[in-house]
């Protein structure tokens, strides 16, 4: 059985592991760390130990991994049949990984509609192969037929890596595929790399609201699978001479889903905060719903989107769809202006991929400043009012 091993001849009895253990199962006995009942093998002590005295021993089960090759992207279509941007973002990353690994990059695309345009778009973006499957089974967009098809394809073609966008759809589909293939899956990755020595996929994801980054591997199982956060990687530039091929696929039997889609409405106009180029965000420091209204007017005037931190949604000043942070939207604008947001960890987790953050807050010690490239220590409402005054002045001059 797997277990924790503490090497008594290396242990210096510093006690760092004892205080680091979240389970409280490590104690010092005669100046040496000892494990008591209840270890969950989280590995935190292994990382903490300054003298590498602690290790986790794992029974290795060897698998036939040699025959797996190639990197796969599972593409996602939106309601109108166009490719979701994350599919292209993944394609860009997939190309880089395929180059590092020296293998092919394939995209899997399924839908009930004609897929020619989307296939060509993927080829233009540099895909080596596009497996395209047009079948009425895919008409509702619900995950069931898609994961059935993807699993069957993976069993036949044995890819080394499968990447899926970490949308709600992808995060429902990918675990289903991973469990069916009995392989590992890392959720919501933000960094992907091929280790130059082991050639394994290093999958890095934020943990504990982005305060810690964890790098995860799946050494003995294939395919290595990850869902990847949308909106953090750039769209790939079209390749000068696309050479990829489209491989039409057919379902052997029509997949009859158990779930039935009775009705589907778009919750809001396709555009979301995640698409914002310039974003104004209000926090508690905005002071009142009246001031929030001023921010909204300003946003409209300068062609920006607006969002809020969670306390404002909790207070009922704004709708949930405007909430930015770990439990709201993750955003990646070119410029983010943050008005009176203190910057709780959960909020910072949602704005970390912005190109430039400007924090405006009266409290110079507010955590938001640690995430910002530029800061103004002062009253955010004053800035808004001055800005609106100038805009009003301009429009008067024009008329």
């Amino acid at each position, binding site marked *: 059985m797997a277990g924790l091993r503490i090497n008594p001849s290396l242990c210096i009895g510093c006690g760092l592991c004892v205080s680091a253990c979240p*389970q409280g199962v490590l104690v010092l006995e005669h100046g040496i760390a000892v494990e008591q009942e*209840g270890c969950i093998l989280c590995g935190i002590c292994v990382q903490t130990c300054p003298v590498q005295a602690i290790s986790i021993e*794992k029974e290795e089960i060897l698998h036939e991994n040699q025959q797996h090759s190639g990197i796969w992207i599972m593409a996602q279509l939106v309601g109108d049949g166009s490719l979701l941007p994350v599919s292209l973002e993944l394609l860009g990353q997939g190309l880089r990984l395929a180059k590092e690994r020296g293998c092919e990059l394939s995209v899997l695309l399924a839908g009930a509609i004609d897929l020619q345009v989307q296939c060509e778009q993927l080829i233009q973006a540099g895909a080596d192969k596009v497996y395209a499957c047009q079948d009425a089974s895919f008409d509702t967009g619900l995950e069931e037929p898609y994961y059935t098809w993807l699993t069957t394809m993976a069993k036949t073609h044995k890819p080394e890596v499968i990447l899926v966008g970490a949308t709600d759809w992808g995060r429902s589909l990918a675990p*289903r595929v991973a469990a069916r293939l009995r392989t590992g899956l890392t959720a919501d990755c933000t960094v992907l790399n091929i280790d130059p020595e082991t050639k394994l996929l290093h999958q890095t994801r934020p943990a504990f609201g982005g305060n810690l980054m964890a790098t*995860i591997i799946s050494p003995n199982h294939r395919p290595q699978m990850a869902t990847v956060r949308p909106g953090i990687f750039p769209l790939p530039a079209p390749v000068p001479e696309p050479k990829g091929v489209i491989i039409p696929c057919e379902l052997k039997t029509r997949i009859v889903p158990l779930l039935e889609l*009775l009705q589907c*409405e778009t919750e809001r106009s396709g555009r979301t905060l995640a698409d914002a180029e310039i974003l104004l965000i209000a926090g508690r420091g905005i002071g009142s719903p009246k001031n929030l209204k001023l921010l909204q007017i300003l946003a409209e005037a300068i062609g920006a989107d607006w969002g809020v931190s969670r306390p404002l949604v909790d207070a009922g000043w704004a709708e949930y769809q405007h909430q930015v942070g770990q439990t709201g939207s993750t955003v990646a604008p070119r410029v983010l202006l943050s008005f009176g947001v203190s910057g709780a960890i959960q909020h910072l987790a949602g704005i970390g991929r912005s190109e430039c953050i400007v924090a405006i807050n009266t409290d110079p010690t507010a955590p938001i400043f640690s995430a910002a490239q530029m800061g103004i220590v002062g009253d955010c409402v004053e800035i808004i009012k001055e800005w609106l005054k100038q805009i009003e002045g301009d429009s008067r001059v024009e008329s």
Partner: protein
Amino acid sequence: MDPVTNTIIRDGKQSVINPYDRFALELALQIKERLGGSVVVVSMGIPATARILKEALSCGADEAVLLSDRAFAGADTLATSYTLQLGIRKMEQRLGKFDLVLCGRMAIDGDTAQIGPELAEQLGIPHITDVEELLEVSQERLVCCRLADGERQKVSAPFPVLLTVNKDINQPRLPNIKGVLWAETAPLHLWNAAEVGADLKRCGLTGSPTQVVRTHVPLREQECKVLQGSVVEQLKVLQRLLKGED
């Protein structure tokens, strides 16, 4: 309607029910009140997790199962969902086939949101994630509303099915005195790997394909430049920035 199962966050002496799982438990209790049946809570964890299960019992669950064994330690989502599946299967031998498995959307510490769909796969039943509202439920099927990628989908599912529920789907109840007394004597099964017939190669660290190789604190890329001067001057910098002139 028969047992309804719910998963609870692993670990810890001071651990609490995963907040998302409270909504799942409340939904199970509401369905039981309307259609009858029983509610079973299932968790994998160290023996101290029993305290959390007692709390679920005191809220009105009928039975609880704690899967606990050294062999389960270090499990990733695949190994965890395998182990939970075994617990559910063993419970079925006692109470008959279940209709509905409810999970919180995700755990607040790991937040992978993978256990639900992986467990459904191991049980061989369909699943619906991100459920916002249960619209209809009968002896044969349910209709729920799901919010996914900006779409509000009304989905109908036959039993058995697994749902992962969003927060705020309901207002979870607190235990009352009657419940607390019930929890003292309510059946709480503590099962180890052998008792659920676990294949040790699929449990715990050994059965986990994924491994954490490194953790690090993200580096700050640059320092924050604090703008000086009057409001008008500060504003000028912002306006230049928006135009991309900086």
